């Protein structure tokens, strides 16, 4: 009886501490999400007419929605692969006893701390084929000029995203690397394993939880990307960089169909949740313990 009372008091205390966060999330996340779900069943410029599942069936049959989703999946795949490969490579490089590695870490992390609007404008100006700095530099050293914003726009905005975010994934991998006990490497060295084998057999398997976290976060941020298309390419050329959230934004604020854009938002949320669940399940199945 006494322990139950004590438990109740602890629980009340815990809930009291959680209350501010619960209120914050309710006011600024859950209520708006509920509102979006409710709006997704309505239509008209003021989203005031009942549409039932009409917006959902329309979205599933809409080639523009399908196209923007495929563009987004392609973008996310590039960002996920780049985040893992480049982030891990940088972390491995910086995990060595190099001089000035703290400065190097800070320099790699600065882009992550910069707003996507500033990063977008910066690279938009650097990459401009006619007036950008990059082509002047390439021309000065006798290299052919680039037109990447026109010839490979999706790859270009994925690369800009990686430039901005890879410092963060590097820090995560670095933390993971430093959490691997040195004794495993020592034992492997004594057994005659070379650096390549130690990386494949010890480092990589023991980094699995970090890799899983990085990939889940990269998939979520890739599927939610907006600023890159909005600031750098305006979704173009044509619809080559029409990322899903940018597409949804345009449906809402340019074509003024809030019901339809809400339905697409809900579908995207479902896709993100599904991807995350699948990744977490697959990742946990592959976890290694020594």
């Amino acid at each position, binding site marked *: 009886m006494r322990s139950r009372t004590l438990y109740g008091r602890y629980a009340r205390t815990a809930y*009291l501490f959680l209350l501010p966060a619960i209120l914050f999330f309710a006011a600024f996340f859950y209520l708006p999400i509920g509102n979006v779900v409710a709006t997704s069943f309505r239509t008209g410029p003021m989203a005031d007419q009942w549409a039932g599942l009409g917006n959902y069936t329309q979205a599933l049959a809409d080639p523009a929605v399908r196209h923007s989703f495929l563009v987004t999946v392609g973008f996310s795949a590039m960002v996920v692969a780049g985040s893992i490969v480049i982030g891990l490579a940088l972390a491995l490089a910086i995990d060595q006893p190099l001089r000035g590695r703290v400065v190097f870490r800070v320099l790699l992390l600065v882009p992550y701390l910069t707003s996507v609007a500033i990063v977008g404008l910066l690279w938009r100006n650097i990459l401009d084929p*006619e007036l950008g700095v990059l082509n002047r530099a390439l021309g000065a050293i006798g290299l052919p000029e680039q037109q990447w914003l026109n010839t490979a726009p999706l790859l270009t905005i994925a690369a800009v995203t990686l430039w901005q975010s890879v410092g963060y994934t590097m820090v995560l991998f670095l933390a993971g690397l430093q959490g691997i006990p040195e004794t495993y490497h020592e034992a492997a060295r004594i057994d005659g394993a070379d650096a390549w084998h130690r990386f494949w057999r010890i480092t990589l398997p023991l980094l699995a939880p970090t890799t899983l976290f990085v990939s889940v976060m990269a998939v979520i941020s890739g599927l939610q990307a907006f600023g890159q298309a909005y600031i750098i390419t305006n979704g*173009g050329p044509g619809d*080559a*960089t029409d990322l899903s959230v940018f597409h949804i934004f345009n449906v*809402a604020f340019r074509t003024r169909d809030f019901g339809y854009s809400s339905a697409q938002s809900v579908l995207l949320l479902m896709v993100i949740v599904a991807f995350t669940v699948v990744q977490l399940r697959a990742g946990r199945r592959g976890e290694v313990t020594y």
Partner: protein
Amino acid sequence: MSSHPSRRDLLRLVGAAAAVPVLSSCAGAPATQSAAPGTFTVYWNAGHDYAAYRKVIAEFEQANKVTVNLQKYQWPDLRTRLLADFASGTVPDLVEEPGGWVQEFAVSGNARSLQDYVDRDGQAMGFPSDWQPVTVERNSYQGKVYGVQLHLTCNTLLYNKAMLRDAGVEAPTTWEELLDAAKKLTKDGVYGIALNQDYTYMWPWLVQAGITPYDLDTKAIMEPRADAVAALQFQADLIHQHKVAPVPVSSTDYSGPQKLFSAKRAAMILTGPWDLEPIRKTSADIELGVAPPLKNKTAATQAAGVSMFVPAKAARPDLSWDFIKRITALEVEQAATKETGMLMPRKSWVDLPEVQSDPVTKVFAEALPTAKDSSQQVRLTGQLGKWEEQLKVMYQQVLIQNQPAAEALDAFVKAAEGFLR
């Protein structure tokens, strides 16, 4: 009794303190902007903050004992803000719009009819008799006035006189002459012409080719189709076949050609009076020439320019109307033209000495009667947003990605037929 609060008291205090900002942010949500006493909120384009308008604002504030909160936005951001306002019911007192929104919001019930004010004050202020007819038509819906035009602009050809003189070419008057001139001007890192990635810049070419974008009665889209294809392909060929223009880059910024022209990397651009000020400011040494609209089937251009409207839920429409009257007075138009070279919608503006004595403004002013509204019929369907989204994709596919114009236009027409049904 202890003077120290118990753990429970502390928890209550923390909980209450944390709840305050959250709850107050809901309870303390500001009343509608338009209802805020003493403040008159205006949404304005960031590029139109002229000294001439600041003077009007100061007079308006003094006369009405209010403070004008002039909120400046780029057009896409202004639209995002405005639509959010409409959804929340928190609306400004007055909105400047880039052309097309007045009818769109009249159709949706978000704009207030100004007809009662026009009936009362129209004769005294010369509205609509002193306004170019196209500006009244584009701001009316079902026979009622919903907006008043602030600027009336159009696109025409701007050229670098020295470059043309050095190349031994005259300012072109037709598409063929333009191509010929551009070929001669393209050398040493300079392009003969620079085209804009923004789809609105295709309209002068299409109206010169005699295209009707959409006919509300017959439902025909982009007809005559063969001429529309030819007009689009001509632009793409300037870039990809003749290589007399750079490949533009897709973005929200439409100042690319102006920047190339100002940097003396392009000899000719097609643009409107909004680019005059940046060119003069950044490259005062450029000998600026302005030519009348080019001729294909006809010599014509696109009517553009901005208007003002009052949201339906604005709390003080009397004040909003007073603001409109003051800022559209002929002497204000005169001052704004003198300051920036901007073109104005009053018929009497054309006869002002500032217009007639300025060789640049005069050419633009003389082009205005040939200016056609490219989206009038589409606006009345309430589908302008979808139309513009599809146009943007189609134009960039042709201009930037070099997709055959016939193919891209067919796909556009098919999509448009779907939502204009």
